[in-house]
Structures are given as C-alpha cells and as structure tokens.
C-alpha cells in the first residue's frame, strides 16, 4: 500500500463552534490506480485531499506514505516529503505569476535540487501537454485549459509517487475536461497513484475507483 490513512478526522472551528468535515475515515491508494472522490460542495472532499497530500494536519488519525507517518514529522521533513513524493494540482489558478511557463514547471524541482537536470524533462512534459511552444510566456497569456495542463506538467516534473488533483477541470469545457482526465489516466497507467477530487459526470469512464463523500464519510461506488 503506497498511501494509507487510518481513521482520520478533521474538525474545523469557527467563532467558537465546531464543524466536523471528516469523520474517522480510512483510505488507501496503490500505484497505477486512478481514484476519484466525488461529492457535493462542502462534503469534505478537498479536506480529505489536503490531509492525504500533507498540507492540512488532521484533528486525529494518521497518514502514512509507505511506512512513514507524515504528521509525526516536523515542518521541514514533511515539506521535503511533499516536494519529493507528491505532485499536487491545486484547485483553480495556481501559477506563480512572475515565472514563465517553463519556470513554473521547474519550480518544484528547484526547491531541493539544481533544476538543470529537469529542464529537458520539463520541456518534454510541456510538449506532451501541447504547450511546449508557450514555455517562455508568462501564465497570464495562457487560456484556462493551457493553465491546467501547465499545472499537470508541474505536478509531474519530479516524477512523483502520488499525484493529487483538486477539481482539475472545474472551469474547463467538455473537450478540455476529457483531455485533462485522459492525461491523468495516462499518468496512472505509467505507475503513479492518482487521487482526483471532482464532480464531473464523465469520471467513471476514466477512474479505477470512485468514492462518494457524504457527511464526512467515504463510500465506494466503483
């Protein structure tokens, strides 16, 4: 098992009131699998993805990558684990505006290592995403679909073990949505574990596993 969550819960506190988002949830993800979590807005999908990707500490429970307990680590260790093992596609626009498309893709690689070794790979990824010719432009010149493909290329730059995508097609048309899911499916087939949070109807065509999130609990549909 590559990624495992044991009985994770998350309770948000706002103005002195508690709002449970995740309730004693177990989850696991294996290499080569494209897993999709669906559910209504506010059902806790993004909270689950954030906890599994190491960017939001659960109120209780543990998350393991291989055998490493992610939330037992300090910030530096967890940041390194996240940077070296995870490729994350955040919801909405996520480009760093001062960097070109190529620099955006290279950014995760440059945090811990010299990026020189990744330049060729970055250009290959951009070519695969059909935005290779846009590598030297700034993100503000990209369309929504191109921006999302850039985010996917950036998530894959360090050849991560797990790819997380939060609503990767929320603002895209049907053609672009299918294209993005095709790329994610291809990524899973190349041996990565892929977890996608999405409300798209076409998901079952691409997913190996589909979960539905309701009231802070996961129910497997497919």
């Amino acid at each position, binding site marked *: 098992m590559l990624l495992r969550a044991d009985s994770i819960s998350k309770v948000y506190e706002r103005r002195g009131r508690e709002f449970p988002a995740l309730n004693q949830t177990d989850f696991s993800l294996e290499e080569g699998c494209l897993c999709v979590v669906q559910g209504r807005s506010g059902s806790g999908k993004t909270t689950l993805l954030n906890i599994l990707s190491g960017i939001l500490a659960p109120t209780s429970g543990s998350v393991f990558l291989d055998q490493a307990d992610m939330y037992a680590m300090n910030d530096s260790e967890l*940041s390194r684990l996240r940077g070296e093992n995870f490729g994350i596609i955040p919801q909405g626009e996520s480009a*760093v505006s001062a960097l070109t498309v190529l620099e955006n893709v290279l950014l995760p690689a440059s945090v811990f290592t010299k990026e020189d070794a990744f330049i060729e790979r970055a250009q290959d990824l951009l070519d695969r995403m059909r935005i290779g010719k846009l590598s030297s432009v700034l993100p503000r010149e990209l369309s929504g679909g191109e921006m999302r493909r850039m985010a996917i290329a950036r998530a894959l730059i360090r050849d991560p073990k797990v790819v997380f995508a939060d609503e990767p097609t929320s603002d895209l048309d049907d053609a672009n949505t299918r294209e993005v899911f095709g790329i994610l499916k291809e990524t899973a087939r190349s041996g990565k574990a892929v977890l996608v949070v999405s409300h798209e109807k076409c998901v079952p065509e691409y997913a190996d596993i589909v979960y539905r999130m309701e009231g802070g609990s996961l129910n497997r549909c497919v």
Partner: protein
Amino acid sequence: MRTFKKLPVLNIVRRPGRSAALMALTALLSFTVFGALVLTQSLGRGMASLERRLGADIMVVPEEAAGKSGLESIVLQGNPTYFYMDDTKLDEVRAVDGVGETTTQLYLASLAASCCSAKVQLMGFDPATDFTIEPWIRDSYSGELGEMEIVVGSGISSSEGDRLLFYDVPCTVAAKLTETGTNYDRCVFAGEDTIRELIKSSIGKQLNQFKGTDPQSVVSCILLKVKDGADIDEVVSGINGSVANVKAIRTASLVSGTAKSLSGISGIIRMAAAIVSVIAFIILAIAFSMQIHERKREFAILRVFGVSKGSLAKSIFAEIAMTCFLGGLAGAGIFACVMIPFSGAVQGWLNVPMLMPGAAAVTGYLGITLLLCVAAGALSSAWNVLRVSRSEISQGLREEK
C-alpha cells in the same frame, strides 16, 4: 541559478508596478535619512571649516566697522567689503597685557565693472606673521606668493596661470584652493603688498570710498592669539580700554551666532527627517501588509511544492530586502542629483557655511541609509511575513486569486 532561489529577483523584475510602488516609499525614507545625514554633516563641517579658517582668539577692527551689521559674515565668511585703520594700531595692541602672536589683514572689494574680472573679496595677509590664512593655503600651494600673484578660492572660475584684472591691475593666479563650504570659496588671497597696489589703483580711479587713505600705512584687521594663561575677555577689555578708535571682539562670540543658527537648522532637519521616517515606516508596514495578504495564495502554492515555513519566510524577506535596497539607492541617488548641482544655492538660501562630506563619508552615509531601509522593510513586514509563512497551506489555497 535555481528558479526558487531567484524568485525574489523575478518577482521584482517581472512585477515592476508592484515593486515600484514599494520602492517609491522606501526611496522617500532613504531620501529623508540620507539627506538629513549629509545636510547635518555638511553644516557641521562648514562650521568646523569656518573655525579653522579663523584660528585667532581676538579680532581688532576699526570702531566704525564693528558697528556694521553682519560683521560676522564680513570677517568670518569674506563677504565683499573693506575698512581701514592706521597700522600704528598694531603696536598699540601688541603693548596690551596678555597679547601674544599677532598678524594683520588688509581687505578690498573688487567691482562688477569693466576694471575687474569679478566682484570678489580680496584679502591680503602678511606671510611673515600670518597664522590664519597661510596654513590653510599651504594645503593647496607650497610656494611663496610673489608680487601680483594671487590664490583664488574654489568658487572662482579660473585656474592656475590665468590672469585676473582688479582695478585694471593684472594678477596671476598661482593656485586654487580646496573647497571650504564658506564664502571664502569666492575670495581672492594675496600678500599685503599686492593688495596695497590694488588699493592704490582703486583710489587712483576714484573707485575706493576711503579716498584719502595711504595704502602703505593701513590695515583692515588685527588678529591675535592671547598668551598662555591669559584670559581672553580680560585682553579684549584691555584693548578696548587702551587703544582708541578700534573694537576688539572675541572671535568665539562671532562664531557663536553662526553656531546657534547651524544648531537650529540641524535640529529642524533632524526633526523633519524623524517625522517623515516614522510616516514612511507606517506606510511601508501597511503596504507590505496589503501586498502579503494579496499574495497569500501564491505563498501557499510555494508551500505545496515543498517549500518549508522557514524557506518561505527567507524568500519573502529576501524580496523585501532587495526592494528596500533598490528603493533606498534610488532615494539617495535622487538626493545626490538634487544636492550636488544645487548645494551652492542651498548654502545661499540657508545663509550658513556648508561643506559637503568627502566621498568616503558619503559612501558611509549611503551604507547606513541602505541598512536602515532594509531594516525598516524587514521590521515593518516581519509580523505579516511570519504570520503568512506559518499559516495553514490549505487556508492560503482558499484565498481568491
């Protein structure tokens, strides 16, 4: 260089509008701090230069000259004027108890007319006894001044070897002095014999108000040092009581008026600088707070890619430090561009001696200013930077673009 490492630079270069606004605020801070440092130092150096130029404890002038308003600027700063007394007064002054070393000076003002190259103050000194002008001239000219040879202040537009005309008498420029920051920069110095020739010519041309004067037997001013252990005030009283038609003045009392106005101006400059600096600091803090808030999502994205809290804070601080450094450099540069060409006008407007610090000192003030700008940026943004770098990543991702 790695993209993440160069991100602070790229943020400044590729978001010029955002960076320029912050740099403008820092430039205001830098302009004020650097300006205050340079101006107060210039005033202090001008005063020190004035005191050095004087070098005497007591000055003795004709009684009618002492009654003139602005004697301080006439005698200390060399504003064009002249007056005479009989040279026998020197022996009378020397006879007073407590009088030590003495020397005389002879003044003449040239005219803005065809007979003269420029309207300047001509100051004659006795090379044999002088202890006020010659030591200073020695910094620029080591030879002996010959007949009709002159040394010009730094503000007179002529150079060594040039010939200047005073009352139709040609004089050769033997040397040009270094800047003093006082009106001495617009004076001409020569041996007393040369000045006597010029006085003679001015009387001959009916251009001297002291028409019956014999240039060979007059002096304008006697400068003296008191003997060791003698009380300056007692010597002043002794001269005023025993030598007729002259006025002895303690030189420190002349300088004290200038010192008082310098102190007042310096105080106003310091206070204005402090007020502007505090206002600039508060505006910087607000501007950084707004900018950091606006970029919360961008910072969260960096954390997603594995940037730790510490590395993120360092990256933001690096960007702020560079912004403040460049803004500081711009502010100091603007001050230099304003001050260098207009320092003479500023000096004239303030009516006090000013002497710009040397390059090494200015570089030091620039260093202090830039350090202050960077520190102001870091301090004014510290709370927001630490807060954003320690906030939950998921919270930052929820921020609207």
